[in-house]
C-alpha cells in the first residue's frame, strides 16, 4: 500500500490523507450530534408526558360507579388524541378510565413503588410508545396513572436529522477534497517550479543556479541546499574535466614519442647502434607510461575504496629516517641539506603505504627547493596523533593553489617538473595514502617563506576509516 501511495504525486497524497482525516472527524462529529439530538428529543417528550400526567391527576375525580373520570374536560383540546392518551388503574389492576389513543398496551401497568415515576419505551403492536407511569391518589384511593404518547413523530424527526447528516457527508468530503487539492497544488507550486528549473541545469550548464525567492522559508532552504549540491557538482566536474584533459595529455605524449621514434627508425636504414638508441628511448617512454598507468590505477583503486591496509606497529621516526636516508642522495646532488629531528613514535599503520606518502612529500620538497638550501624534517606526536612536517626553503605556494597542488596532474611549474621526471601524481598519491590512514595531508606557508607540508595520522586505527587490516 505504501508503493501505491508513493506512485502518486505529493499533491494527490496530501489530498487523499486530508480527505481521510476529514472523514474520520466528520463521522465522529455526526455520531456525537445524533446522540445528542436523540437524547434531547426524548427529554422533551418525557417533559410533555410529565406535564400531561400532572394535568390529568388534577382533573380526575372518583365517579359513582367506583371508577374515575375527569371533572371537567374543558382543557382538553382533543388535538393529537390519536397519538396520545392516558389511563388509570386501580390497585387491583382494574381499568378505571381511559382517554385518547387506544394503543395495544399491556393491560396491567407495572406499579412503580419507588421512585413513584417510571418512563419506558414500549412496543405496542408495531408502535413505539413512550409511557410514563406514576402513582396518584384519586378520592383517597391509590391508583396508577399511565400517560403515553406515540414516538412516531419523534422517530421521523430523528430520521430526518440522520439523513441530513448521512447525505451531507459525501458532499462535504468532495468539497473538502477539491479545496484540499487546490490548496496543496498552490503550496507545492514553488517546488514544481524548482524542479523544472533544476531540470534545465545539465552537465553543460552546471554553473547556473536556482533562483531563491525567499531564503528563509522551506522552499528557499531547499533551493539553497540544491544550489550547494550544484556548486559541489560543478567543482567536481571541473576537476574531472581538468583531470581528463591532463591525463590525455600525459598519456598521449609518451605514445606520440614512441610512435615517432618508431616511424623515424623505420624510415631509413640506420646503424645497429642507432637502432639500439631508438629502442632505448622508446623503452624510456614505455617506462614513463607504465609508471603513469600504475599510479593512475592505484589512485582509482583508492577511489573505489578497494584498498585494504596491512596495518602493523610502525615506528614513524625510524620510517622517516629511512626515507630521508633513501632520498638523501637526491638532495646531495642538489647540494641540499636535511635537518632531521625524528624521535621514535610508534603508530598503527601500513608501512609501505605511509612510506610512499612520505617519499613523495620529501621528493617534492627536494624538487622544488633551491640548491644549497636546508629541508627541515620533524616528527612529533600529540594527543592521539603523530605528525611529520617537511619545511622547505622553496618559492612557497600561493594560497589559491594550496588545495589544488594535491590534484592529479596539477603542476605549479609545467616545464620544470615535467623535465625533472615528475609524473604530477606524487602529491595526489601522498594525499590518498595519508587519508586512507584516516589522516590529513596539508600545506601551509613557512615562517621564512617556503612551504610546510604536514602529514598527520592518527596513532591508532580508527575503525570507521574503512580500512581493515589484511
Amino acid at each position, binding site marked *: 500500500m505504501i508503493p501505491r501511495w508513493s506512485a502518486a504525486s505529493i499533491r494527490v497524497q496530501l489530498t487523499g490523507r486530508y480527505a481521510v482525516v476529514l472523514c474520520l472527524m466528520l463521522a465522529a462529529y455526526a455520531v456525537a450530534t445524533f446522540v445528542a439530538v436523540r437524547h434531547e428529543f426524548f427529554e422533551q417528550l418525557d417533559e410533555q408526558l410529565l406535564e400531561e400526567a400532572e394535568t390529568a391527576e388534577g382533573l380526575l375525580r372518583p365517579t359513582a360507579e367506583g371508577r374515575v373520570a375527569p371533572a371537567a374536560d374543558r382543557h382538553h383540546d382533543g388535538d393529537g388524541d390519536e397519538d396520545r392518551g392516558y389511563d388509570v388503574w386501580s390497585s387491583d389492576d382494574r381499568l378505571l378510565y381511559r382517554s385518547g389513543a387506544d394503543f395495544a398496551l399491556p393491560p396491567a401497568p407495572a406499579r412503580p413503588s419507588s421512585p413513584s415515576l417510571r418512563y419506558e419505551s414500549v412496543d405496542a403492536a408495531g408502535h413505539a410508545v413512550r409511557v410514563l407511569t406514576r402513582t396518584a391518589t384519586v378520592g383517597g384511593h391509590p391508583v396508577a396513572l399511565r400517560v403515553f404518547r406515540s414516538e412516531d413523530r419523534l422517530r421521523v424527526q430523528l430520521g430526518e436529522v440522520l439523513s441530513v447528516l448521512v447525505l451531507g457527508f459525501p458532499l462535504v468530503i468532495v468539497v473538502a477534497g477539491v479545496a484540499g487539492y487546490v490548496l496543496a497544488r498552490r503550496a507545492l507550486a514553488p517546488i514544481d517550479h524548482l524542479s523544472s528549473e533544476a531540470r534545465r541545469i545539465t552537465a553543460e550548464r552546471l554553473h547556473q543556479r536556482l533562483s531563491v525567492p525567499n531564503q528563509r522559508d522551506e522552499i528557499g532552504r531547499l533551493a539553497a541546499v540544491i544550489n550547494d549540491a550544484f556548486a559541489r557538482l560543478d567543482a567536481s566536474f571541473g576537476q574531472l574535466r581538468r583531470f581528463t584533459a591532463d591525463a590525455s595529455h600525459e598519456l598521449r605524449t609518451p605514445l606520440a614519442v614512441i610512435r615517432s621514434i618508431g616511424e623515424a627508425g623505420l624510415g631509413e636504414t640506420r646503424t645497429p647502434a642507432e637502432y639500439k638508441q631508438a629502442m632505448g628511448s622508446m623503452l624510456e617512454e614505455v*617506462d614513463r607510461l607504465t609508471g603513469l598507468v600504475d599510479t593512475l590505477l592505484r589512485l582509482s583503486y583508492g577511489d573505489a575504496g578497494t584498498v*585494504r591496509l596491512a596495518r602493523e606497529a610502525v615506528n614513524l621516526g625510524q620510517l622517516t629516517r629511512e626515507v630521508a636516508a633513501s632520498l638523501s642522495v637526491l638532495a646531495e646532488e642538489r647540494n641540499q641539506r636535511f635537518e632531521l629531528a625524528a624521535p621514535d613514535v610508534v603508530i598503527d599503520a601500513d608501512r609501505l603505504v605511509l612510506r610512499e606518502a612520505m617519499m613523495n612529500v620529501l621528493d617534492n620538497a627536494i624538487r622544488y627547493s633551491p640548491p644549497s638550501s636546508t629541508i627541515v624534517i620533524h616528527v612529533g606526536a600529540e594527543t592521539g596523533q603523530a605528525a611529520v612536517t617537511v619545511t622547505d626553503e622553496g618559492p612557497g605556494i600561493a594560497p589559491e593553489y594550496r588545495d589544488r597542488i594535491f590534484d592529479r596532474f596539477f603542476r605549479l611549474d609545467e616545464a620544470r617538473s615535467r623535465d625533472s*621526471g615528475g609524473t604530477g601524481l606524487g602529491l595526489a598519491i601522498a594525499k590518498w595514502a595519508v587519508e586512507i590512514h584516516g589522516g590529513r595531508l596539508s600545506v601551509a606557508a613557512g615562517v621564512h617563506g617556503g612551504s610546510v607540508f604536514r602529514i598527520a595520522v592518527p596513532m591508532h586505527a580508527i575503525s570507521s576509516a574503512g580500512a581493515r587490516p589484511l
Partner: protein
Amino acid sequence: MRVLVVEDERKLAEVLASALQHESHEVVVAPTGARGFERASTEPFDLIVLDLMLPGCSGLEILQHLRQRQNDTPVLILTARDGVDDRVLGLDLGADDYLVKPFALPELLARVRALLRRGRPSTALRLKTADLELDVVTRRASRGTRALDLTVREFELLEYLLRHQGDLVSREMLAREVWKEPRRATPLDNVIDVQMARLRRKVDADAGERLIHTIRGVGFVLREGEP
C-alpha cells in the same frame, strides 16, 4: 629445460618464446587455456609461464586443476591486475611466483632462472668479476689494487649486481630487492639512477675497463666486455 608458455596474446607469446629459447630452453606455446591445460597435464615440463586472463578458461582455474592432480611443476603467473587479492589467491592456489604486466623481460628471465634452480643468485661470500672483488663478510670491495670506499647502500647495490653478473637488472628489480619497495613508479627511480651513477664513478673511474653498463630504457648490467 622445457618451458610451457600459456599466453593468448600472440606477440607477447612470441617474444617470450624467443627470449626463453635464447636462454637454451625448449619452449611450447599454448594460445588458449584449454590447450595449455591439455599440454600441461599430458607432457612433462620444468616450468609453466601462465597468463591469468585467458579466453575460455582462467589461468587460476588451470593452476587449481593442475595442483589438484598433484602436478607440482613450478608456475610463474603473469597478470595485468595487481590487486593484492589476485596475487594472494594465485600464490595460495600454488603459484610459485607472479609478475604484473607490463613486466621487464630481464626480470621475467631472472624469475625463470630462479624457478628453474639455475643461475640462482650465488650465496658465495666472496664475489668477483674481472678485477672487481667484494667480500660480503668483511664488507670490503676493491677494484684491482684500489680499495673502494662504498656507502652501505652502494655496497648492497654492488653485491646485487655481482650476484646477478651478466644479467640485465631493471630499476624495478633493484627497487624491490635492494630498497624493498614493491611498487613501481616511485621517487626511488631517481634515487636508483643517482646511486648507480655514484657507484659507477667509484667502480669504473680510473679503471681500464668499464664493468657497469646502462642499457637505456631497460636497466643495468655488470659484466666484462661490451653488454
